[in-house]
């Protein structure tokens, strides 16, 4: 019951600044974390591996939310940045013989550097013009993925060795899941803290009113560039994990479609919201799978038009996304807050 948190009894600023404000919330989040870790013990390998892809998507979505949702710069290059991370991580492991635990952060930093380079136009460009510049980044990187064969294996792709601790290799569904979900939880924590401290607030200020941000002493270009770097770092880590997940990376995965997918995640989940990144990642990962199952079942029931139904899948996907944008323009996280506010006062509706 919610009797516990009617009223405001915070005693100190420290109390007031807690992320998880009430005991009820703390307990729920704790329970959720436990659930995350025991989940694979009860679930199929398929479900576990789907959860792994959600974890990776959460990290990538948090990243693009930092540059787009929090700092207000539309990025159409998150997919390509993930590719940079994946190829870099594999390269560091195979050629430089780094262990994954060093290769992954190194891949993150490499991607951050690449992200910074492609963020340079933010010195002069804003809004849609900047978005087009990031689109250029996407295509330049895609071109490099195909043509830098020594690093990326060109159009054949390249293997990605599994992380290892001693003789234990992370090559099973469960171990991949545990690694991914742990990093995803860390990414959520880091982002939550970031946006309630100095640099994160500066990002939001740059988004909301860049002229006043500058008047308050915020170096605009520094923060615009930094947001690109941080965002790309997340993408690099997510890409490294993607390499681990698939075991083999090819340029095909890191196209503009993937970038748009990530943009859609945070728009649907909630721009400038950590929770929204999570919701969006879940939604955009599960929806296509649900549609595949749904249309597959339909096609079996009506075998004559089965092919037709299957081909509608992408259209239905697009339609659902558009409907969401129309009816939930503020994102799932916003709806979630409204539902929470409602239950807090239940049964009094005002």
């Amino acid at each position, binding site marked *: 019951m919610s009797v516990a948190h009617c009223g405001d009894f915070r005693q100190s600023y420290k109390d007031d600044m807690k992320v998880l404000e009430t005991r009820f919330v703390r307990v729920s989040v704790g329970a959720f974390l436990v659930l995350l870790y025991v989940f694979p013990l009860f679930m199929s390998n398929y479900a576990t591996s789907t959860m792994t892809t959600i974890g990776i998507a959460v990290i990538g979505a948090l990243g693009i939310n930092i540059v787009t949702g929090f700092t207000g710069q539309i990025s159409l290059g998150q997919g390509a940045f993930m590719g940079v991370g994946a190829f870099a991580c594999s390269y560091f492991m195979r050629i430089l013989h780094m262990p994954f635990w060093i290769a992954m952060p190194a891949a993150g930093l490499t991607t951050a550097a690449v992200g910074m380079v492609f963020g340079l136009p933010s010195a002069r460009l804003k809004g849609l013009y900047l978005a087009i510049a990031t689109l250029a980044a996407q295509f330049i990187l895609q071109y490099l993925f195909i043509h830098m064969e020594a690093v990326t294996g060109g159009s054949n792709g390249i293997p990605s060795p599994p992380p290892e601790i001693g003789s234990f290799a992370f090559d099973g569904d469960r171990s991949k899941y545990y690694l991914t979900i742990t990093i995803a939880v860390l990414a959520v924590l880091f982002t939550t803290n970031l946006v309630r401290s100095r640099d994160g*607030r500066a990002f939001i200020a740059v988004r909301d009113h860049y002229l006043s941000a500058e*008047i308050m002493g915020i170096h605009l270009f520094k923060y615009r560039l930094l947001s690109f770097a941080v965002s790309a770092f997340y993408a690099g880590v997510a890409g490294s994990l993607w390499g681990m997940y698939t075991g083999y990376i090819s340029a095909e995965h890191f196209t503009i479609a993937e970038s748009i997918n990530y943009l859609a995640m945070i728009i649907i989940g909630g721009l400038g919201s950590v929770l929204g990144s999570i919701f969006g990642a879940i939604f955009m990962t599960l929806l296509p799978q649900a549609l595949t199952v749904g249309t597959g079942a339909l096609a079996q029931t009506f075998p004559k038009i089965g092919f037709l139904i299957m081909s509608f899948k992408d259209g239905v996907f697009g339609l659902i996304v558009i409907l969401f944008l129309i009816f939930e323009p503020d994102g799932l996280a916003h709806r979630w807050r409204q539902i929470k506010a409602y239950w807090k006062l239940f049964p009094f509706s005002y």
Partner: protein
Amino acid sequence: MTESSERTVQLEVENINLRFGGVMALDGLGFTVRKGEIFSIIGPNGAGKTSMLNCISGRYHPQRGSISFEGQDVTRLTPAARARLGIARTFQNIALFKGMSVLDNILIGRHTHLKSGLFRGGFYLGPCRKEEIEHRRFVEDIVDFLEIEHIRKRVVGTLAYGLQKRVELARALALDPKLILLDEPMAGMNLEETEDMVRFILDINQERGITVILVEHDMGVVMDISDRLVVLNFGEKIGEGTPEEVQQNPEVVKAYLGGEASVFLGR
């Protein structure tokens, strides 16, 4: 008032020319502001008052002339660099961070004083937490001072106009400035809100020792609280001095022709 002439010069504006295409927004404008005074800039609509504040805060770069603050030439500095030197401002049209809470808006004012970067912030380690609490305390002092405790958690975009003006003042104060530029802080306010604002400005000036440059159309207020003022017309200075001197300046009186003039000059 007499003591103000003995105070040291804090801001020196010399021979500023600012042009927008064919419009001469500021024409050879110069004046000095002394430490600790309330200095007003008045003039009819379009006279160049906001443009002058923009030159001081670094938003506009004049084609000619120089501005120095506490002995340092700031003419070429970015707005952010000037903020770090201790120049804060509010805007004629509210320019808050609409998506943020009142507290977060004011905390942005602490930006230049906070030290935790990306990593300390992201991990929210001890020093970062300590720093956040310490600066939260600073911000809460301002919140108390401006009597906005009841709205501290609200998102600013949803607040009434008068309150937003107050939050903007709070944000500027959080910078802990030496000089604050106020662009029409009472515009659009009712009598009670205006009285509150006057009280705040006087307190800022007297208790916190912050120099104030005030742009305001409410002549009653300006003549009441200013130590000195300049009068602009079409970007040119047509008068300067104490309120009494300005009110008797024939050129100023001429610029504000007719019956309205006497009202304007508070006579």
